Each structure stands twice: as C-alpha cells, then as structure tokens.
C-alpha cells in the first residue's frame, strides 16, 4: 500500500535527520578550529550532494513511469465503463454505482457548483484513488476494482459547511 510506503520512508528519513542534528548538537560544546572542519565538510558535501541528486533522479524516473492521468488499466479494444460523476453541494450523482470485479472503469468527474474532491475509499477506509471535481472541467480517474465490497466516495476538497457529509456508496460484486 502506497500510504504505508510513504509513512515508513518518511519516518526513516525523519529519524535519520533527527539523529544527525542530535549528534551535531552533542558535539557542539567541543571547540575546534573551523578551517579544517570546513575543509572536511565541504569535501563530504560534494559526495553527499551528488548522492542525493542521483537518488532523487532515480526516484523521479521510477515514480514518473506510470502516472494516474494516462494509464487506462484496460487493453486495446476493450471498452471501459464510462461513469459520469457530478458533484454538487453536498452530494454526488453517479451514472452508475454497481460494478464488477475486473471491470475497467473511467470516472469522468465534474462539478455543478464549486470545487469538490472525488476520493474513492475501500472497505477499510483506505483511499485508493482520487481526483478533483471542478466546475466547467472534467477530470478522469481510471480504475479496475480487484476486490468485491462496498466502496465509499468522500469529498476531499473543502466545499462548504456540509463538506464532511458529502459521501456516497459504490457496490462491487464478483
């Protein structure tokens, strides 16, 4: 699950940074000449900087391979189910709300009034996909459900005083 990977990755790097700052704070009360320290640290920075840039480049290339905007999950010649999604204060209108496992779906999401967020949640309330619901524009979410169950649609862009009540249910069967 992406959320878990994001959390663990963040935690590892945040702990690493904490450790480095604590280490330097502990060493701060010793007093040494600055010039040799500077020389050594500048040398180390070149290595650290290059490593960081290369690491970020690799992650960038890896994560940009498949973007959610342009990855229909169905093969050529297969017709997806197009679902028209309209948001309005404070509810959802979907042209279809019952789906099959393995069915290729395109949610075409728009809004009749203000900005909303179309967030799809599984039964454990983990978010599995989202897009913005905007007036005058249509954003697309590509999705194929892999598990049967009751899925939730939650509003993820603040849209007014009943924003938190703007939910909807989708049923996915085998």
């Amino acid at each position, binding site marked *: 699950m992406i959320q878990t990977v994001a959390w663990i990755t963040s935690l590892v790097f945040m702990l690493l940074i904490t450790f480095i700052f604590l280490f330097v704070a502990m060493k701060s009360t010793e007093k040494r000449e600055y010039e040799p320290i500077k020389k050594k640290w500048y040398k180390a920075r070149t290595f650290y900087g290059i490593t960081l840039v290369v690491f970020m480049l690799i992650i960038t290339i890896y994560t940009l391979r498949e973007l959610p905007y342009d990855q229909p999950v169905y093969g050529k010649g297969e017709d997806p189910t197009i679902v028209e999604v309209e948001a309005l204060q404070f509810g959802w209108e979907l042209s279809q709300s019952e789906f099959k496992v393995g069915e290729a779906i395109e949610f075409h999401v728009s809004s009749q009034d203000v900005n909303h967020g179309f967030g799809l949640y599984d039964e454990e309330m983990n978010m599995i996909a989202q897009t913005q619901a905007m007036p005058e524009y249509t954003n697309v979410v590509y999705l194929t459900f892999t598990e049967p169950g009751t899925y939730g649609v939650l*509003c993820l862009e603040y849209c007014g*005083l009943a924003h938190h009540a703007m939910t909807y249910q989708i049923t996915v069967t085998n």
Partner: protein
Amino acid sequence: MVHNRLIRNYLIIGGTVILLMMGFGILMLLAQGGVLSLSPPSFYQYMTIHGTGMIGAAALAASAVMWYFLSQHVTLSKNIFKANLVLFLTGLVLVIIGVFSFDYASAWTFLYPLPTLSAKAWGTVGALLYLFGMLIIGIGFLLLFIDTGRAIIKKKGSLAKGLGWDVIAGKKAEKDAPEPAIIAGTMVAIVNVTALIAGATVIMMNIIHTVNPSFTFDPLLAKNLTFAFGHVFANSIIYMSVIVVYELLAKYTNRPWKANKVFLIAWSMSTIFTLMIYTHHMLMDSVMPKWMLIIGQVFSYANGLPVLIVTAYGALMIVYKSGIKWDMASGLAFLSMFGWTVGVVPAIIDATIVVNHVMHNTKWVPGHFHMYMGLGAVVMIFAFMYYLAKVDGGLKVTKLDWIAFFSYIVTMAAVSIQFLVSGALSTPRRWATHIPEWMGPALFGGIAGVFLVIATTLFIVHFVRYILQRNVKRNDLYDEKLV
C-alpha cells in the same frame, strides 16, 4: 537600534495571534477527536480563521525579522513598514468580522466560486468583508516587498546583483558577495511581489463575482492563481525568518557564515523553484497540462536540495565542534533548522504524483506544514524574539523558558506526527467530524496542543516582559555588547 519599537510591535502582534490561532487548532482537533461538541459551521469558521491568522501572523512577524536585519544594510522606508502594520490590522479586523459576525467560512484558500456559492451558509457581506480584508492585508505586504526590492536595487544596482549573480558569473570576488540578509530579501521581494499580484488578482475577481454573479471567470485559472499566491506567500515566511539563523549562529559560534558561490546558487534555485512548484497543489487536476504537473513533482524534489545541501548543512557545519554557548535564541535557531529539514521530507513524499493520488487532501498535508512551519519558520521567529530580548533588553531567561523550549519540541512534533499518521490512515483533511477509526490521532494532537499552547505562552510572556521593561538602556549591538 533600528526602529526597535516598531519591530517589537510586529513581533508581539504576530506572536500573540499565532498563540490564539493555536487555540482554534486545539478546538478543531478535540472536536475531530470526539471529545468536544463543535457545530460544523463553528468548526469551519475556526478553520478559516486558523489558517488565515497563522499565515498572516507568521508572515507579519517574519517580515519584521527580515526588516530588522536587512535595514542594517539597505535603507528601507519606515513609513511603508508602519503602513503595512496598519493595513494588516485593518484587514485583520475585517476578516474577523466577516468570519465571526457574518459566518464566513471558505478556508483561507477560498477556491473560486466558493466565496460566492456557499449553499446560503454565509452571505455577500461576510464574503466581501473577508475578501476585502485579505486584499488590504495583501496590499500592505505588496508595498513592503516592493520597497524591499527598491532598497536593494538602490544599494546593489539590480535584483540580480542582490542575488549575487555577478559573483556567480565570476565578475566579482566571493568576498564581495551580498550579505545573507540581502540575498534572502531579494529572493523574498521577487517571489512575494509575484505571489501577491496573483493573489490580489484572484481576490478581486472573487469580489466582482460576489457583487455581480453574472461575472464569471475560469475556475482552473482561479485555482492556479490561488495556489500561486498561497503556496509562495506561505513559503516565503521561512525564507524571511531564516535570516535570523544566519545572523545568530554566526555570532554565537564566532564563525563566519558568508555567502559563497554554492550559497548564491542555492538561493537562486530557491527563488526559481519556489515560484514554479505551486502546481504540486494541483496534481489531482488531470485537466492541467501534464508538463506542469510533472514540473510540480520534479521541482518540488529539486526545491529540497538548497536546504538539504546548503542551508541545513551549513547550520550543522557552523555548529559542529564550535564551542557554542547555548541559550534560548541559539537553541531555537538550531531547532528551527531541524524543523525545516525534517518538514521537507513529508512534503517531497507527497509531491510524488503516485503518492499524491492517494494522499492529497488527507491530513498528511497539514502534517507536513505543521512540522515545517511549527518546528521551522515559527521557531525562527521565537529565536529572534529571545535574541532581541537578550541583546536589546538584557533580559535573562528562567528555568521555565527552558522547560517551555523542550515542551515545545515534544508537543509540536506530536501535533505534526499525529497529522502524518492520520494522513497515512487516509483521514481527509478539513472534516468537521471523524469516524471512530480516525479519532485517536486527532485527540492525541489536541491534548499535545494544550501543552504546546502553554509552552508558547511562556515564550510570549518572556517577550512581553522585555517590552514592559522600564529604565533599561536599550542597545541591540551584539558585537558591542560582547566587547
């Protein structure tokens, strides 16, 4: 020395508003945690005032930090500095009336056409009061940053020279590079004048639409302008405040922290990237040109480099085995660099498009910016407050201040981490109510927030003691005092 009374007014207003806004934050977390009954309209009003107040107050106090150090190198207009404070307070009053008397609650990001289309929750008057309030605050800051740019151009010849491009190009020696305060001031003048023009544009469009709903404009353009304003302006707070870190750590360690080519390149990168990366707020708008969204990810990563490789690294290097004498000011300055660095991590993670797809607008986002602002930018402001109280007022700290220091670290980290945990659990942000599975972290954050407010109150009390001092010969010349 440099108009300290005005600086003190900026800081005490900024600091006090930040403290009050923390109170609203606690109420929201306790309501989400299920232990406080708060009606949704109240919750969203608190949310609106919390965001607006925090960003406004932090920007106000940060601009005082910048003004204090920058005015030691260039001639800034005191009248404009005064006018900004007056306009800020005027705008703040309008915002407060709009929110609390006219039920306005669009969040400080006010995405068009929400200010007008509230499902009749608030009326035209509330929207206009809030929008005009924001416009007035924006005009004050716009004048301030135009004046900042003007003063730098007058001294250095151009903004490019303020960023040290002549040094980067080799036309000037590194030893003649601009002072860090000038470099930061130049960067902030460039990005904030741009951001505030974008903000003023979208606010005026919203105002016209509110008065005459038949006047409409493109919602996607409005969203771009809103985030171009909001992201850049909020970001600039740390770039103004960090000047205090350069100044303090260099003084306290007795080691020079001067600009060299790498430093200058880093600040130029920050200038460009800060302007470019607001699109990472729009990664879930697939109708945006794809290249703009990819830029949002790529340059959000790249924007981490100047701080990770240059600024934070420089802070660590200057402190390492320096024999530094820790006091509240230097301790907070060092802490703020930690907060900035550590807060960059969840930001970079969330700027990754595939991650954003399942984490955008969850509580992960406030997790990042509470860490970045609460442990970074705002701590820089507190560092400056303690510094000024020490060098200008000769005020000594007590054990209570140190208790507040460590309490602040623990509780601010707790507040930030509970947001991140909530984000990892897919808890949506800006929800007045939570299902039971989401309540735990919010309740934990609310309780931590209570202790955070106590710690922050002690910081503010120390500064108030400094302001109220009588019969003290004020002199903030640190070097002179050392002698």
